[in-house]
């Protein structure tokens, strides 16, 4: 009976961390009734904490620490033993030769529990707490923050500074201490039961030694706190807590928790967010919008898939149609105003979100409000953003629709009508479905037939799409392509160039064709990378679709490696099972030769797969090296040109390019970590221009 209760408690507490104080109160009341229950519960929690830390589940571990802290408030755990645990946490900062991110986590776990339990701990053990806090402060002062610029959404400090997360939390705790640990936002049900709880016997936490650092330890990456609103943004409503108030921290933590609990169920998630307690004392809609965008724009990557946030915001608008859409519009306007200093990756996400959102609301927007962008150079962030949004909106609808929804003055930003460009022969506006074209190419390659024969085949290729015009494939296009479908790198580059020339008004088609050509092995990933950096594509280099293609290419490469590794693991497992079966066989007829024969095919397969894995991994590494090399070349060219010409290095093109380089590091950081030595010794050496080297150094600092 007790065990069921325990497990139920833990499950619920974990599932709904934002309701933490409800569960701790319950545990407190149970402990008051049954001392042993409390003891076993605490022991189980400590065990789970250790397991989480060993399994690199640091987010879960933070909630466990917070839960334990609140159990002090419920008289389940004695305050001095909690202080002792925190002493051990912060002592991690004294460890030698450990990554900074390890020390960061323990400091974070300590500081982030203080809003809940700071008052109680300070009342009981002020001298010890002061000591721990002072140790924390000296750690925070000496830790390096090279990584910060790479994680900031905006490069400007106005109107809100993009603070490193530990700095912000420290400021919040400092303020809390100055306010004598008075914290008024957290709901504390246990206060109502004080008379019962204060009679309870408390337990001492066993001494807690943080598990040692191992090679397999992977700590959370540092973060930058995203802020876009303050109390001036909602003058009519309740006052938004300041950026260094502990209330702000608690609200944001809880809202993030809600999303983490319910991200798979958008309606529930929206409902839970909107029913966050205290919603008449805080401008809840603003907090929610800020927290959602904080996740969407988070660098390196959002916690959940991007499309979730779009759909979540739509659900929120449905539930609060009278107020939330206005806040969202206000947010959009603010984000637009600050495009000049926004990180390119974040601009991509903003653009993807906005266009998808509009497509759910008949593309209604006050475009004229943004006519200021028409006065800028078209490569500046604001007009560029509008162009990309309109192109994405078109992809979700059709060309004429987009022409109709924007004022006539915006025509310079409108996307081209997506169509094929035939160099020879008749004009046609029909776009060939990518699948038909890919099918044709595959057939030609597989059959290795002559060009004339290919032509004949193509005319008769059955169509999955019934559109009759698809039968009329312009022979000249494919002549060009097949002529140069050699095995050589030059041939592959030429194929890509031809595809670009024909489809440059229809970027989506280019992406589809490149995808198909990689999958049918007409071109390889490195060829695509080289093509993207080639002079022919310079004109489109800063357009979003190019980077869509590059990242999709890298993703395919990564998935390919993972797939073969999995095959290898599965085959090895099969061999192991076969051995086990043989070993457990009672058969005395232990013929060595027959076992070898049995193992033979599997062992051969494993050998082949090992080779395949090595070759795939080598191709993957080569892809990244090619990409980095081309970035270095193209950036160095620009920097040299600027320096000799005496012009400012920071042009819109430069900002875009250097942030694209950053994006490669951030988006694929786990894989790139494997190549650190090669990158350091081969590419990102000390002779490199400091502008480019800084990106590499910031990346290194992320897991240092």
């Amino acid at each position, binding site marked *: 009976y007790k065990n069921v209760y325990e497990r139920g408690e833990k499950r619920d507490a*974990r599932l709904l961390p934002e309701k933490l104080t409800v569960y701790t109160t319950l545990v407190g009341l149970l402990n008051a009734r049954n001392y042993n229950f409390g003891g076993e519960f605490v022991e189980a929690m400590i065990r789970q904490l250790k397991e989480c830390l060993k399994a690199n589940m640091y987010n879960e571990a933070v909630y466990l620490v917070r839960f334990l802290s609140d159990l002090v408030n419920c008289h389940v755990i004695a305050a001095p033993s909690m202080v002792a645990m925190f002493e051990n946490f912060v002592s991690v900062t004294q460890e030698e030769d450990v990554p900074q991110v390890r020390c960061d986590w323990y400091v974070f776990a300590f500081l982030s529990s203080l809003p809940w339990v700071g008052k109680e701990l300070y009342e009981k053990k002020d001298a010890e707490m002061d000591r721990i806090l002072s140790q924390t402060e000296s750690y925070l002062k000496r830790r390096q923050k090279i990584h910060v610029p790479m994680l900031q959404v905006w490069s400007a400090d106005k109107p809100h500074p993009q603070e490193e997360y530990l700095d912000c939390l420290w400021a919040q705790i400092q303020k809390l201490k100055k306010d004598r640990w008075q914290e008024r936002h957290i709901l504390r049900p246990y206060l109502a039961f004080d008379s019962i709880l204060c009679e309870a016997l408390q337990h001492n936490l066993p001494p807690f030694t943080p598990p040692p650092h191992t090679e397999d330890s992977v700590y959370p990456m540092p973060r930058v706190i995203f802020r876009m609103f303050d109390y001036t943004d909602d003058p009519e409503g309740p006052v938004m807590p300041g950026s260094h108030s502990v209330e702000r921290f608690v609200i944001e933590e809880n809202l993030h928790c809600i999303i983490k609990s319910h991200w798979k169920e958008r309606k529930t998630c929206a409902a839970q967010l909107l029913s966050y307690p205290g919603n008449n004392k805080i401008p809840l809609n603003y907090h929610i919008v800020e927290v959602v965008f904080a996740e969407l724009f988070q660098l390196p990557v959002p916690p959940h898939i991007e499309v979730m946030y779009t759909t979540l915001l739509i659900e929120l608008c449905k539930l609060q149609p009278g107020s939330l859409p206005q806040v969202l519009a206000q947010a959009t306007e603010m984000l637009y105003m600050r495009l000049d200093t926004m990180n390119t990756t974040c601009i991509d996400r903003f653009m993807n979100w906005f266009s998808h959102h509009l497509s759910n609301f008949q593309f209604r927007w006050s475009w004229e409000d943004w006519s200021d962008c028409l006065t800028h150079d078209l490569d500046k962030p604001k007009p560029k953003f509008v162009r990309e949004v309109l192109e994405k909106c078109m992809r979700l609808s059709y060309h004429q629709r987009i022409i109709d929804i924007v004022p006539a003055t915006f025509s310079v930003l409108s996307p081209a009508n997506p169509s094929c460009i035939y160099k020879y022969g008749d004009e046609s506006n029909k776009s060939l479905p990518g699948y038909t074209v890919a099918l044709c190419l595959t057939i030609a390659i597989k059959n290795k037939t002559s060009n004339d024969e290919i032509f004949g085949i193509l005319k008769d290729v059955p169509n999955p799409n019934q559109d009759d015009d698809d039968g009329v494939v312009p022979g000249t296009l494919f002549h060009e392509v097949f002529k140069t479908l050699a095995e050589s790198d030059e041939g592959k580059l030429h194929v890509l160039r031809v595809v670009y020339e024909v489809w440059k008004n229809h970027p989506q088609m280019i992406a589809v064709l490149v995808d198909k050509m990689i999958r049918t092995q007409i071109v390889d990933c490195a060829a695509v990378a080289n093509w993207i950096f080639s002079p022919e594509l310079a004109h489109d280099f800063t357009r979003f679709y190019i980077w869509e293609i590059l990242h999709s290419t890298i993703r395919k490469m990564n998935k390919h490696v993972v797939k073969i590794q999995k095959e290898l693991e599965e085959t090895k497992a099969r061999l192991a099972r076969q051995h086990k079966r043989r070993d457990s066989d009672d058969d005395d007829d232990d013929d060595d030769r027959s076992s070898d024969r049995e193992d033979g095919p599997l062992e051969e397969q494993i050998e082949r797969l090992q080779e395949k894995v090595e070759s795939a991994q080598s191709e993957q590494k080569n892809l990244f090296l090619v990409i980095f090399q081309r970035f270095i070349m193209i950036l160095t060219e620009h920097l040299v040109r600027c320096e000799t010409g005496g012009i400012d290095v920071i042009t819109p093109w430069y900002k875009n390019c250097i942030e694209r380089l950053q994006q490669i590091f951030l988006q694929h950081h786990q894989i790139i970590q494997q190549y650190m030595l090669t990158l350091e010794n081969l590419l990102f050496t000390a002779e490199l221009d400091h502008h480019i080297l800084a990106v590499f150094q910031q990346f290194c600092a992320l897991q240092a």
Partner: protein
Amino acid sequence: MCSVAMLSVLRSDSYAELSQYRDQHFRGNRYDQERLLKKSCTLYVGNLSFYTTEEQIYELFGKSGDIKKIIMGLDKVKKTACGFCFVEYYSRGDAENAMRYINGTRLDDRIIRTDWDAGFKEGRQYGRGRSGGQVRDEYRQDYDAGRGGYGKVVQPQ
């Protein structure tokens, strides 16, 4: 065993579950069909406009992952689009995300509906209504400009 990992399984994921619908033309028993549905990477997409293109579908459904194939639903007689399609992903996880975040949102201003499909087989791209389109367009009474106007029962012969 780390009980923490076990507990996350308890979280609800209703959007990605199987619906009550079962294709009556499926060759095989109920058990086979459910087995296939539970590991399928293919989604049926319904309530499309007749004018919605493959490119639009690719753009929208590409937001939950890399698409392997799109098969447009066709009128059996006219061989024109009749308002549904199949979207196949390379991985089930991507299809699940489509069920969670694209199902019930708009494409071409219409709320579209997605559901698990046991897998495309030749012939399944055709409407099963008597007139060649989908069954729902045979009997509906309302006027829908994106789906050929009135339902076939209402239309003049």
